[in-house]
């Protein structure tokens, strides 16, 4: 078996969820690496969109900012924020990648504050474009390390909507029907969401990881998919592309 680290595992697992011909709104870091890997393997026609305006670049290196000039390198279009977000709002963007300081069992994300909003223990950047992507794109994916402080029963602040309070609550709030969290990819497992309860469930475990280990690193009760597989590890070819072409300076996979 090829030797790889957890970041390489997470990026590969994320990349495999992006099918050829789909469209995805990405940020910097692991999501961007996942989109690049997908393009260089099974999804050459993946449409990559950056919130600041970049459309379908041929990324020469990892961007540092979702608005830097790498995001329009040999791109099809250099547009603006309304153009990108309204493409999402019209229903033409299949996936987005998000992160956050906290996530709950319904996939709600907090990137605003820890503690009380008016008197925060810790202030974070806020939504940025996260709430917009989470509201508009069909399927939300999250790449994040798994620990009990991050995977909480209730987030301190819902910055970006997951399934909110459970089944039907996105639609009741007025969000577009048929949208919501899709996969949560961590250093331990790949999780999805139970169709009926809209709660997070473990779908595959990375090599050598047990369900109990994932549960220990989660502050809410995880559900189990009917069958829990082992996450397919990165192939030698995926690792070669990731290391030589996607992130040769190891900005992301070196962590």
């Amino acid at each position, binding site marked *: 078996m090829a030797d790889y680290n957890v970041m390489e595992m997470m990026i590969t697992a994320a990349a495999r969820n992006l099918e050829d011909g789909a469209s995805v709104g990405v*940020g*910097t*870091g692991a999501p961007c690496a996942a989109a690049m890997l997908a393009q260089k393997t099974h999804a050459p026609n993946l449409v990559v969109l950056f*919130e*600041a*305006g*970049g459309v379908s670049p041929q990324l*020469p290196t990892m961007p*540092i*900012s*979702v*608005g*830097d*000039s790498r*995001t*329009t390198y040999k791109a099809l279009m*250099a*547009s*603006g*924020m*309304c153009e990108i*977000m309204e493409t999402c*709002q019209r229903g033409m963007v299949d996936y987005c990648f998000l992160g956050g300081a906290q996530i709950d069992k319904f996939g*709600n994300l907090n990137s*605003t504050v820890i503690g009380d*909003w008016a*008197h*925060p223990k*810790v*202030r*974070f*950047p*806020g*939504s*940025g*474009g*996260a*709430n*917009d992507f989470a*509201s*508009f794109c069909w399927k939300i994916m999250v790449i994040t390390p798994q620990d009990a402080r991050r995977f909480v029963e209730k987030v301190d*602040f*819902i*910055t*970006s*909507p997951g399934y*909110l309070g459970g089944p039907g*609550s*996105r639609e*009741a*709030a*007025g*969000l*577009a029907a048929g949208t919501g969290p899709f996969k949560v990819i961590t250093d331990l497992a790949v999780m999805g969401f139970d169709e009926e309860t809209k709660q997070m469930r473990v779908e595959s475990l990375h090599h050598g990881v047990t369900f109990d280990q994932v549960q220990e690193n989660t502050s809410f009760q995880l559900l189990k998919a009917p069958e829990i597989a082992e996450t397919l590890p990165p192939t030698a070819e995926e690792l070669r592309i990731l290391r030589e072409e996607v992130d040769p300076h190891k*900005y992301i996979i070196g962590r």
Partner: protein
Amino acid sequence: MYKIIAEGTGPLFMDPDPDAARAFFRTKPRALAPKVMKVSQAVERFVHDGEYLAIGGFGANRIPTAICHEILRQNKKNLAFAGHTSTHDFQILAAGEAFDRCDIAYIIGLEARGLSAHARRYMESGKVESCEWTNYAMACRLKAAAMGVSFVPARNVLGTDTFIRSAAKIVECPFTGKQFVLFPALWPDVSAIHVHESDIYGNCRLKGISIADLELARASKHLIITCERLVHNDEIRSDPSATVIPYFLVDAVCEVPFGSYPGNMPYEYYSDEVHLREWLNVEKDEEQFREFLDKYIYSVKDFTQYLELCGGIQRINELRAQEHLIEVE
């Protein structure tokens, strides 16, 4: 009549009345007059204590750095700030504690580079009154203002605490019965945008992504342009399709070569990650940070002197090579 379903509890810092805006825009000069001035003059004339300020670009990409520095040097205070796609610009203005009200979409962070320790301390200090939005929500507010109407509807923020802490309202659509959030128009008192080229009147061209700057230029009551270079009016007239901001929106034009430094300027130079990392590191110690600000901003005469302190033409050439992916020894 719209039925209001829910209202955000956040403060609305600016009046969304389109007729108040029209009354102002009626008085804005239309004459094709030269507006070239120094950065210090532009800030003195158009940025006033207590007013609402917005900065163009995307954090550390195509930002009017010289204007942000000058706002600190002139000790502007009690501004309200549009924390929209802001990163290094926010970091500079927070360093000077220039604002005490903030519309928040994205603040404190510098994306993949990490969080600004000082900006975070400032936002946690209780000195800043704030209201939550998102990047698209703020773009909608500027779009509404640019349209000359008091709101724009959208389908984000619904169901979240981001909405509760905003000053938006949720209504039922009179056509479909579906719920929409309405974002109130935002007419900033003054904005600054950095572009590639402008003529002396303020007809502007830019390359690469426009972010929300086309909306911002049209929403702003006063607009300061900094440009990489001035071009002749004949050049503008030779290709009118390249003009993205017409002169009558503009109040001041300042020629500031490499003016987005240490940020990225598309097709010109890449961001100076060494200098930006130095900012982030030095902020952890308040005493060191004060010395740093004194060295790079407060004791500096103008942007040219700042560039020289940061390595001058030699450093800029390295960043130009990075931007164009040219391997140099």
